[in-house]
């Protein structure tokens, strides 16, 4: 009772002071309500490649440095960004040294040390761990402690762009003490650690209901005593994009909602209510159609879409893949589904400017039904009695799967209509977004399993350097039962030449040469039809007019600066 009185008196005093002295004060602005219409299934981004998991966990666990809204690196847990100039990156590009801020504490009060970083690296690179972010640690030979607050990362080969491990929301530092028994195959079993990771970020998980609600409270040990301004945060999951947009823009029930993939005309009517506003940033999101290079015939059972299934009977023909791309009118898809928040593209790396290729624009950006038909004719695919092309008994009829979203379903219908003009049939299927992106290895409907011939979704890369993103199409990154379906090479594309070029990119230091190589790789993927890029999407989110401090970030987690958010007084 006594203690409570003191606490109360203290908080009253703090409030009184807060009103006069400081502008910001931790926990003065009540509850922050965030709506992710794709519910979050885990708070451990190492176990799920989904954007929603990465974003949600970025409120709790942090990387050493992150990208700001302009795409520039800013230090979070370190004193400065290591560069060659300040001696943080070795001249031979074989190592780099991070200096931790001296007094960063985990939310449980213990100090953050070099040991945690070493552990994080070991955790994600452990065999059988199925780490979803393994690409971040690619080429890292060793992570060692110089002293408790200095970490040296050595690379196998000179790493011209070394900001990958521990940089960006996809590669946060986790606490060694909490995860020590969760390495390797045991990683998914550590439910409490995966759901409630101890972090250094502005919020702590108070309660986690998978695929539903996460309750946060302000981290009492956060390094900035004045932040976060919100005492608690609620991250609600589920629903659909349109209802999420409505909850922020029209009814004002939520403060922030992510990923407004809603028809532009519908958003316009919601905005009229004046309760919220849209924020957008063009990052690297590309809506693409992945073409399955392996056979996805349901008759193959659990073997489908794996190496044992063999090559796809129709999509393994390069002419088919190219024709499918040529038949698509990207302008119409953009107009019907994206409006201001999208532009037609033929690149998988659409930004930053220096990396954006124009190599395929001549044949791919404009619809060419005639050319596509000719290509298929030449390749021996002849229209049958039903108008669908076939060759040797294989019909050009594809199961076309995507997540449930009205824009995606509209795009599906448009694409089906365009493909029908070249004698290609599509069977449309949509799967609830929580399942499709849920990453549950037991579900047959996840995008990683790809039990369909073609599938459509959006992906992007964090930061401004596409090297590790382009490394996702390496032969050894194909999702398979052996790696828990965790690989990022969803189209199952495999080209030794491509692998070689990626290796070359990893060795090139000169920025212009890197851009050159990245463009070449990007062009290779489009040209060889690993996928069909459709729309370069702006990241479109909405926030309440009463919420201040939102800086839309296309290069890192959208919630990257959630510590700075506050309620408009």
């Amino acid at each position: 009772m006594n203690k409570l009185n003191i606490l109360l008196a203290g908080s009253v005093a703090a409030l009184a002071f807060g009103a006069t002295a400081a502008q910001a004060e931790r926990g003065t602005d009540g509850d922050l309500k965030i709506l992710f219409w794709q519910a979050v299934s885990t708070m451990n981004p190492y176990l799920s490649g989904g954007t929603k998991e990465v974003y949600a966990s970025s409120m709790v666990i942090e990387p050493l440095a992150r990208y700001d809204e302009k795409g520039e690196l800013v230090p979070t847990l370190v004193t400065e960004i290591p560069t060659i100039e300040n001696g943080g990156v070795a001249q031979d590009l074989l190592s780099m040294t991070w200096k931790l801020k001296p007094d960063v504490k985990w939310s449980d009060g213990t100090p953050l040390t070099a040991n945690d970083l070493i552990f994080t690296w070991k955790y994600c690179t452990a065999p059988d761990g199925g780490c979803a972010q393994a690409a971040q640690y690619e080429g890292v030979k060793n992570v060692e402690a110089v002293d408790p607050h200095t970490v040296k990362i050595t690379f196998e080969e000179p790493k011209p762009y070394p900001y990958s491990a521990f940089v960006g929301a996809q590669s946060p530092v986790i606490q060694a003490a909490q995860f020590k028994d969760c390495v390797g195959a045991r990683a998914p079993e550590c439910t409490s650690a995966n759901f409630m990771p101890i972090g250094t970020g502005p919020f702590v998980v108070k309660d986690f209901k998978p695929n539903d609600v996460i309750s946060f409270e302000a981290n009492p040990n956060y390094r900035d005593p004045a932040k976060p301004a919100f005492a608690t945060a609620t991250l609600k999951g589920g629903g659909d994009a349109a209802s999420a947009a409505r909850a922020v823009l029209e009814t004002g029930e939520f403060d922030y909602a992510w990923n407004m993939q809603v028809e532009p005309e519908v958003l316009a009517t919601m905005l009229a209510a004046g309760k919220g506003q849209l924020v957008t940033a063009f990052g690297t999101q590309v809506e693409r159609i992945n073409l399955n290079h392996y056979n996805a015939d349901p008759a193959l059972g659990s073997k489908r879409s794996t190496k044992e299934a063999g090559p796809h009977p129709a999509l393994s023909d390069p002419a088919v893949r190219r024709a499918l791309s040529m038949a698509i009118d990207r302008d119409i898809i953009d107009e019907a589904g994206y409006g201001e928040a999208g532009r037609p593209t033929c690149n998988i790396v659409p930004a930053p400017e220096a990396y954006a290729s124009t190599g395929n624009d001549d044949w791919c950006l404009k619809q060419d039904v005639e050319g596509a038909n000719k290509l298929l004719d030449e390749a021996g695919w002849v229209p049958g009695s039903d108008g669908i092309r076939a060759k040797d008994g294989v019909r050009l009829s594809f199961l076309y799967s995507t997540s449930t979203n009205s824009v995606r379903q509209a795009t599906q219908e448009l694409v089906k209509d365009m493909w029908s003009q070249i004698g290609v049939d599509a069977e449309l299927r949509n799967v609830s977004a929580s399942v499709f992106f849920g990453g549950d290895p037991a579900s047959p409907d996840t995008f990683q399993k790809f039990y369909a011939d073609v599938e459509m979704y959006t992906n992007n890369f964090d930061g401004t350097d596409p090297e590790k993103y382009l490394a996702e199409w390496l032969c050894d990154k194909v999702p398979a039962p052996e790696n828990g379906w965790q690989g990022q090479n969803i189209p199952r594309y495999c080209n030794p030449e491509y692998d070689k070029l990626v290796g070359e990119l990893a060795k090139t230091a000169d920025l212009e040469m890197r851009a050159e190589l990245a463009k070449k790789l990007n062009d290779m993927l489009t040209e060889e039809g690993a996928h069909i890029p459709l729309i370069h999407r702006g990241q479109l989110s909405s926030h309440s007019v009463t919420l201040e401090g939102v800086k839309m970030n296309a290069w890192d987690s959208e919630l990257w600066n959630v510590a700075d958010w506050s309620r408009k007084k």
Partner: protein
Amino acid sequence: MTDAAIAVPTAASTPTRSVLADIWRQFRAHKGGVAGLIVFVFILLAVYVGPYIHTVAPNTINVRARNQWPSLAHPFGTDNLGKDMLAQVLAGGRISLAVGITAMLIAVSLGTLVGVLSGYLRRLDGPLMRVTDLFLALPLLPLLLVIIMLFRDTLRAAFGPETGIFILIVSVIGITSWMHTARIVRGDVLAVKSQEFILAAKSSGMREHRIILRHILPNVLSSIMVSATLGIASAIITESALSFLGLGFPSDFPTWGRLLFDGANFLQLTPSRVLWPGLAISLTVLSVNYIGDAIRDALDPRTLKR
């Protein structure tokens, strides 16, 4: 006694006509039933004959003419891809009604079979009714989701995507909605079974299956008819729910539930996208319910006597 002796031959001379006419007379007395019948027949006609009058194909995309309000060319307006809504509502109605009627037939046959068996054969009563309880206790939607996930690919491979999913949805709805029919029929059978004319039939040496077919079934027909009409309504609604959840038929395959689902976001922009499929579902369900009500009244032996 002499009265009855005279009455029987006259009834026997034109038995079917007079019974049907009686039923029809009774049916007509039920105003709601007549209105329901008119509406239902109108919907049936519109859905099956309509496409010959309004000849726009439901899946023709014209992005330039999207989100249009009703006009002469598009009496129900267009959706956000420029597809004609009237054509879609008509095409959707064919699917929804086919699903409703087929699923109802399955449910009613299953329900009647179980109901009659458990009502008539005492030893089967316990087990069959416990099975009924079991099915009643199953949560319908989660079960549907699991069944669809398990059998989707097999059926798709065997019958093609659309027929496959039609068979799946129809049988799933049928298999999960026979229980009420079974219970009602069982109750009726129990009541009829204890009456004297059954005892008479039994003592005359009539076979059991003949008793069931000739004496029991006609007497419980009224409640079967009622559950049938209610079954159509609930099957249409269940299919709508499935489509509304994004399951069921592929997304370019219009059904009333799917149209409603797709149109919900556009409620403020083009209200007619939600209005017409919603109205169609409501009117069909309502009219079918009224028809069922009227049929029950008409088949009720007590009202027939009057």
